[in-house]
């Protein structure tokens, strides 16, 4: 009996820490980071809806992997300029630049060569990621690079995040969220029926570019917390989960934002309870849990509802 008690004690401590983290009692910095992750999640969930509706989910995966060489180059440039190579705004600018280049490569390959978009995505994703890994290895051998911690951009980490970093992420996330909400009507129209949208005078090409650019912005903003390997999941899983619950874009947007927010907030809080818990994977696992819940329990479109309906159809009256 005594042994059992001793075993439950660490469990209780984790539970207390989790409660403290969820209710923002782990100190100012951790609170700021958790709130930032929550806001990032909301923005990612809402932005991701248009990525999924426009069938561009995989492109954003290529884009996120294409950020890595930009991070490495930005670090080297900042160190050579005599500054702090780890300054987050500089690293994010570098990431955005190479992500944009990756996006251009995908669209150029798709439009100007006989390569299909899937092949173009595969090529760009692996080449840029490979270049990034080489750059990171080079940086490891630089004297300034040993403590750079750039590898945290792969899977995301909130440990040791600066207050200013959290603010940058939260503000940028709020900005993207605002833009997506303003542009939701044209982006819906362009995704649903592009020919009709053009006939109404909408610049569909520019609208699609905006949708892609906003998703790219989320990718870059989310690098620090979620990491470039998994950020695409935070863009795609919440919208897909939200779709189970509603047939209206407005509702899907709201729910997707909610799911993303819960995942970001909860994942960041969870990872704050113990050192070394990776933030990105925890956020994605939470999002996945919400997806499974939606898949099973959603009314009408969920698996359980479908099974019930089918049973009722087979035996009329049995369900009454």
């Amino acid at each position, binding site marked *: 009996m005594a042994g059992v008690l001793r075993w439950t004690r660490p469990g209780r401590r984790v539970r207390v820490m989790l409660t403290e983290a969820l209710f923002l009692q782990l100190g100012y910095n951790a609170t700021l980071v958790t709130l930032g992750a929550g806001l990032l999640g909301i923005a990612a969930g809402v932005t991701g809806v248009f990525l999924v509706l426009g069938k561009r989910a995989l492109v954003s995966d290529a884009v996120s992997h294409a950020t890595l060489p930009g991070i490495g180059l930005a670090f080297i440039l900042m160190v050579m300029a005599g500054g702090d190579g780890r300054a987050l705004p500089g690293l994010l600018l570098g990431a955005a630049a190479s992500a944009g280049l990756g996006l251009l490569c995908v669209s150029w390959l798709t439009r100007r060569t006989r390569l299909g978009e899937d092949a173009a995505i595969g090529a760009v994703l692996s080449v840029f990621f490979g270049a990034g890994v080489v750059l990171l290895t080079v940086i490891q051998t630089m004297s300034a690079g040993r403590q750079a911690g750039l590898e945290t951009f792969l899977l995301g980490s909130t440990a040791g995040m600066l207050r200013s970093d959290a603010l940058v992420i939260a503000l940028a996330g709020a900005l993207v969220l605002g833009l997506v909400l*303003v542009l939701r009507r*044209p982006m819906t129209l362009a995704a*649903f*029926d592009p020919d*009709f949208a053009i*006939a109404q005078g909408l610049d569909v090409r520019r609208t699609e570019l905006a949708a892609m650019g906003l998703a790219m912005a989320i990718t870059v903003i989310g690098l620090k917390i979620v990491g470039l390997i998994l950020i695409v999941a935070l863009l795609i899983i919440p919208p897909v989960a939200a779709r189970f619950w509603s047939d*209206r*874009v407005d*509702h*899907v947007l709201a729910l997707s934002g909610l799911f993303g927010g819960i995942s970001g907030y909860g994942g960041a809080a969870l990872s704050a309870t113990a050192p070394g818990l990776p933030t990105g994977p925890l956020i994605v696992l939470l999002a996945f849990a919400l997806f499974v819940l939606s898949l099973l329990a959603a009314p009408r479109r969920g698996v359980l509802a479908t099974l019930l309906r089918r049973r009722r159809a087979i035996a009329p009256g049995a369900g009454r």
Partner: protein
Amino acid sequence: MKIDSTRPKAQSQVIPVRADAAPTSPLAISGLTVSYGDSPALRDVSIGFHPGAMTAIIGPNGAGKSTLLKSALGIVAPLSGRVTCWGKPLARQRHRIAYVPQRAAIDWEFPARALDVVLMGMYRELGLLRRVRAPHLARAMSCLARVGMEDFADRQIGRLSGGQQQRVFLARALAQGADLYMLDEPLAGVDAATERAIIAVLKEIVAEGGTVIAVHHDLATVPGYFDRVFLMNVSAITEGPVATTFSRENLDLAYGGRLALDPAGAAGARDAH
């Protein structure tokens, strides 16, 4: 009449748009050439559509009928040519034009109800931020009612039949409050009830002074449904009232004599969609 494709097209060449068509025509096209890759889809098409008429665009598969509508609306970029609507450039008249595309390209899993689709027709007046209010909803519902779909307003579009979907898209066009309606195969793959409902609404539009241009594939119903007919096969062939223009000789010109001699066979030459 037809222009030899091998002849270099001089800039000064006068394109024979009929004089009566120019400023009053809701849609006047001159010298429109479109190509997909190497093969021309439209070759130097000039046509002025009559105001207040219901015109069918007729031609064999691959004649460029859909491309004509799409390039007239700027959806497909033409190599050359000019499009005016009521004598003005298209860009300034878009609010007066409603387009009903083919249903084939739509993602039916899209989170949109019939009502949401109709509200998309009000995009120009709603803009980015204006909220959808009761008057908008009431107008959308009355458009659905005109096509007999008011009971399905809350239905997700993928759970409607093909004919019902087509009626919803017509309702979306009605919501635009346009003067010119351009429809791409509105009757393809729809049930008989839908066909009757759509034709009734289109005739109402024309009776109220609107203009209807529709790509049509069922030759047998042309005389019953349409006032005028435009025959084409990559190039323009002829345009005129159904009574005089919808003739055996003109159809042979358009279809290259591939139509069987009996009317039933003519109907069988319809585009397979």
